């Protein structure tokens, strides 16, 4: 049970990263990015190309993956999102569905449906803490996520441009008045959001142990989305905490319900919880009250 907690926390932190990307893009463009997880998955293939096939060190492959993700994010922002500043948000969402479909199809076309494997970056024995085993991969994942999440938080809070990004979500017109271009803000949210997706995919790959279309993308997207909603789409810290919650909850539920008759019970329960929370508190657990107006009620 406690072992599951460790797994849950690590998985949850990864969901948290995914949720951070979703919320960042939502704050910037007011749209749910359906391709959020698929960007990361597609870039896993790039990592595979460079590391496994190209025999480069793991970090080089990871770096290439992240750079590719940023490129995808920036291209999409430039050629689709920026053209649609006045378009209804549902249409922009359809655009992200298009991106998702494109990436998914590209994966199948170039790599086929058979799984690929990334060489494990870290091997060796882990540590035992109070009877719970923590693997080196888990430790490194924790560390990486802490650095990234912390770094993002620091950037947004401490730098001028970062503050501008946060302000743009509150009043985009006023941000122009202080001299910040909204196009730069948009590029930032999409570039960083895409990069977060790639990092999350890289970190979850060892858990799933293989790269194949859909296998990584779906749990990442579902987990990240549930996390973002629980935390309230407007709150970045909320998204991360939501991720931890989702990770722990789904692992524990799977642990408890394993072997029972009801199929798919963990996702069922998860979504029941999400739907329930949304109905009672539409702005999520940590979202701000003025988002309530946006959500309906």
């Amino acid at each position, binding site marked *: 049970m406690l072992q599951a907690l460790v797994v849950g926390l690590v998985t949850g932190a990864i969901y948290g990263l995914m949720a951070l990307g979703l919320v960042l893009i939502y704050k910037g463009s007011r749209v749910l990015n359906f391709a959020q997880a698929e960007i990361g998955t597609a870039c896993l293939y790039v990592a595979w190309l460079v590391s496994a096939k190209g025999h480069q060190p793991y970090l080089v492959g990871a770096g290439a993956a992240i750079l590719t993700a940023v490129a995808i994010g920036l291209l999409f922002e430039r050629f689709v999102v920026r053209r649609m500043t006045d378009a209804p948000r549902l249409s922009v969402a359809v655009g992200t*569905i298009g991106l998702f479909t494109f990436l998914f199809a590209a994966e199948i076309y170039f790599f086929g449906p058979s799984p690929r494997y990334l060489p494990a970056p870290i091997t060796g024995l882990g540590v035992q803490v109070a009877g719970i085993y923590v693997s080196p991969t888990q430790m490194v994942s924790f560390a990486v996520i802490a650095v990234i999440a912390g770094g993002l938080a620091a950037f947004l809070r401490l730098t001028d441009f970062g503050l501008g990004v946060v302000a743009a979500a509150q009043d985009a017109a006023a941000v122009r008045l202080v001299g910040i271009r909204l196009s730069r803000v948009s590029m930032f949210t999409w570039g960083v959001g895409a990069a977060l997706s790639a990092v999350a995919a890289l970190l979850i790959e060892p858990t799933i142990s293989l790269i194949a279309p859909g296998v990584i993308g779906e749990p990442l997207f579902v987990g990240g989305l549930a996390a973002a909603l629980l935390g309230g789409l407007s709150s970045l810290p909320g998204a991360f905490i939501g991720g931890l919650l989702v990770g722990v909850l789904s692992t524990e539920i799977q642990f408890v319900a394993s072997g029972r008759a009801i199929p798919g019970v963990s996702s069922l329960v998860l979504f029941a919880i999400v739907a329930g929370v949304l109905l009672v508190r539409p702005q999520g657990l940590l979202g701000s009250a003025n988002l309530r107006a946006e959500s309906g009620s």
Partner: protein
Amino acid sequence: MSAGPVSVSRRSSGTEVAPASPATPVPQSSEPVRRRPLLTPRRSNILLLLAAAILLPIVTAQAMPLAFTPTDSLVLAEAVAFAIAALALNMLTGYAGQISLGHAALLGVGAFASGLVTSKAGLPMWIGLPAAAVATGLIALVIGFPALRLRGLYLAMVTIAFGFAMYDSILRLDVFTGGSAGVELPRRIWHDTQFSDQSVMLAVALVALLAVWLLDANITRTRLGRAFRAIRENEAVAQAYGVDVARYKLVAFVLSGALAGLAGALWGHAVGFVNSESFPFDISLALIIMVVVGGLGSRVGAVIAGLAFSLFPVVLHGIAWLAGLDIMVGALLLMYTVSRHPGGFAEVIGEARERRRERRSARVQTPDDDAITIPALPRVTSLRTSTAVDPLAPVLEVENVTVRFGGLVAVDSASLRVPRGKIVGLIGPNGAGKTTLFNTISGLIRPTTGTVRLLGQDVSGLPAHRRAELGLGRTFQQIGLAKDQTMLDNLLLAQHLEAGYSTGRALAYTRGVAAAEEVMEARAREAITALGFDGREQTPVKRFSHGQQRIIEMGCALLTDPELLMLDEPSAGMAPGAVENLAVRLNDLRDSLGRTMLLIEHNVPLVLDVCDYIYVLNFGQVLAEGTPDEILAHPDVIGAYLGEAAG
């Protein structure tokens, strides 16, 4: 059936005219004057369907084999099923504005329902299909209820959750699905008789498509469709015209669900078999793409997009070198199209049509607001049986109403009364709480304490649309019209309560419904003429200038023959000349027709000219009240709020 007395008299502009003659019952127009047509819309629809049901199977059975293989017929049948599904989603998202990303699950419910009915219970397909529709319509209520509290992205999330829950869990339960073995859908006609001809299946699908199309048409040309579109654009405005938003949202979900279930069942019978993998989330996404690319709210667009999406991959498969790339190409095309034309096919066609119309008719002049004068406001005499209301009793009584939002007190123990046949004004600086008080009176906000009494009845707990039923009419600061709809549609929407027919009758487009629509359209056109907008009734409201929109809005509000007309800053955005004209019209409404009005205004000279009694609000409290002379002399009010008039 009687339509009640209807007379809209037309006034020549500018002159004072005697009040319209007392309402006298007018004989039903259609009887003595002209023969009722033999072929009403409803009859012709039914005939059309019958003819199609009989002829199409024969025709397709003969024609299809000439050029297509049975597999082609099957593929077409599946495409038609998806076109129906697209129509179903369009009804919910395009008309009523409720986003659903869980429709794949509804398709699944329909397929499984029909499957269980036809294979497990051994009943024919023509029982299975309606059963599927009914079952799915009811299940759709599961996402319909959350829609009452959630909107936009949050509603979409709940529908995604619903879809996933169904896909991952419920639809995998043995009792429904026989495990992953799935359920068969035989094309049973009677007992053991089945048909296996694919082209007949195609015919069945086409007949169903025709039926759904006709149903959709009946929705859009009745108050049902207008209510949906009003809900999509602005729920508060819809409520002001008496639309029970909650009820209509649920109706939209049930209808959309039923049609989606039908589509799923048709698809299932075409393929012959469904299991839990048949309706993954991707299909929900595909449906949304179809509806958006087709153009939200466009019947034609939805069907074309539905057919195109289903057939596109098939067509591309034929082109050898494109194999494998087809989806990628399609996705790139999708991203390109949606960024260039967010409104889909329908937007492209609509804009082309508007450009043609503008070239043909006189250019829509954007006139100086100065030039806008209202020749007359529609003078609708009473449609309703008069009441025993005491002419001396106040129409509206507000007693000690307090409205608190969290820690903020927006309205603090305000009281006012509006006597019959008077114009009462509510003035005060921005942020004084006038609009909050207005919204509390009209029913959009519940007071924390205090009562609101309309015609002597306590309406404090009633929702806005019920108050509209009792005779409350209002305008809005941001102009309470469905701006994407035409002027004529808005005037018809305003008559929502007058229409009175039920949803069921609307779907069937009965004779009574047709007659009611005719009468309403006549009234609307007379109003348009009275307002001086002849010939512009098909123009979307958003194309008119701000001042013109205000006039249209007032026309709509008057068309409901309200007991109390509430006007929220009617002069805002008007040029001085138009404001003077407005003052004349408002005075005339009161003097000649005895209309009772409550208005919020910033234009103090207008208020002084028109109002019989004034309340001054500040910081949520009534600071002063009295006749215009008394207010002018009031020390607190002068310096603070009459800056402009003091000059």
